[in-house]
């Protein structure tokens, strides 16, 4: 049962990295998940797809700089302690 809090943190870091790496123009627009394709007027319920696109865009905007810091720290720690 090796599912510890530390492995949860590592998995979360990897997931956030994966979301941050999705490129807006080369990838998201090609599968119809670009940020300018989602907003469907002022309907009451945004729907799951537009919520997801909003989430991806916000994660990419907010976490760009902190991820640099956290990744560097993680790299140094993994190099030192394996």
């Amino acid at each position, binding site marked *: *049962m*090796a*599912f510890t*809090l530390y492995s*949860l943190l590592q998995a979360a870091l990897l997931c956030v990295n994966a979301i941050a790496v999705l490129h807006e123009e080369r990838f998201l627009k090609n599968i119809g998940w670009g940020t300018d394709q989602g907003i469907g007027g002022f309907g009451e*319920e945004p729907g799951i797809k537009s*919520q997801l696109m909003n*989430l991806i865009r916000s994660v990419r905007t907010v976490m760009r700089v902190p991820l640099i810091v956290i990744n560097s720290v993680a790299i140094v720690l993994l190099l030192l302690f394996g």
Partner: protein
Amino acid sequence: MHSAGLATAGTPRQPSKRRIPVSHLGMSDPHQLFDDTSSAQSRGYGAQREPSGLGYPTASASPQGAFLNDPVSNMAMAYGSSLAAQGKELVDKNIDRFIPVTKLKYYFAVDTLYVGKKLGLLFFPYLHQDWEVQYQQDTPVAPRFDINAPDLYIPAMAFITYILVAGLALGTQERFSPDLLGLQASSALAWLTLEVLAILLSLYLVTANTDLTTIDLVAFLGYKYVGMIGGVLMGLLFGKIGYYLVLGWCCVSIFVFMIRTLRLKILAEAAAEGVPVRGARNQLRMYLTMAVAAAQPLLMYWLTFHLVR
């Protein structure tokens, strides 16, 4: 104070949010979570204690008396205690920013009767009719006065008991070592965190406007530890048959409990009116409730099956 409040006991309740008048609770202050027992004691203490500069007992027969009488060390201690008081003020002011202490106090305002009734409800939720939380002037009533309110006492105690019972189970199978205990605790905590994050994410995605706070969610998800403890203990006493029987019973109970509780929180409008409005959206919310409730038995089994051989 109580007699004046009880005189208005005939006030009718509003149907929408179950507001109860102060008199029904028998409390003097409606926003008070805990009974105030300080006044009688502190008066007694104040009369007995001599007012020395720092409140220390002036027992001058000991060598400590000579130490205290020295004016320089008196000043030093006064300065030290004022520094400590300032530091305490600073911490008290700022702690609320990081850990919502006042909100947490609400979840621990329980008493023995509530705990007993809630445990009974967790093992047998089939006869309970009214699952709505009572409100009082827009704030939820403390768990002591309403059995439907979530609390953090039972989940916290159940979690710690689960770790101890896991240690016991491992010990009876000659597999125990102290770091395994920490591993069990860490693993269960990690699963809990993962569950909370997954549910928060899905609540965001289906745009459910609930008043279900994160701490509420942690409280509801912590109730399954009670069933897990029951299962493992029965497994220790009666072997695998006992384990599967009790675990099966607790799984079904937790499933029903979660569905009935979450239905009122997530599907609030539909449940109140009884008529499905805007079918597709409510369907999504219903699926979410079912998924959350179904994940509980799965996790209960996953976290305990390796403890019973």
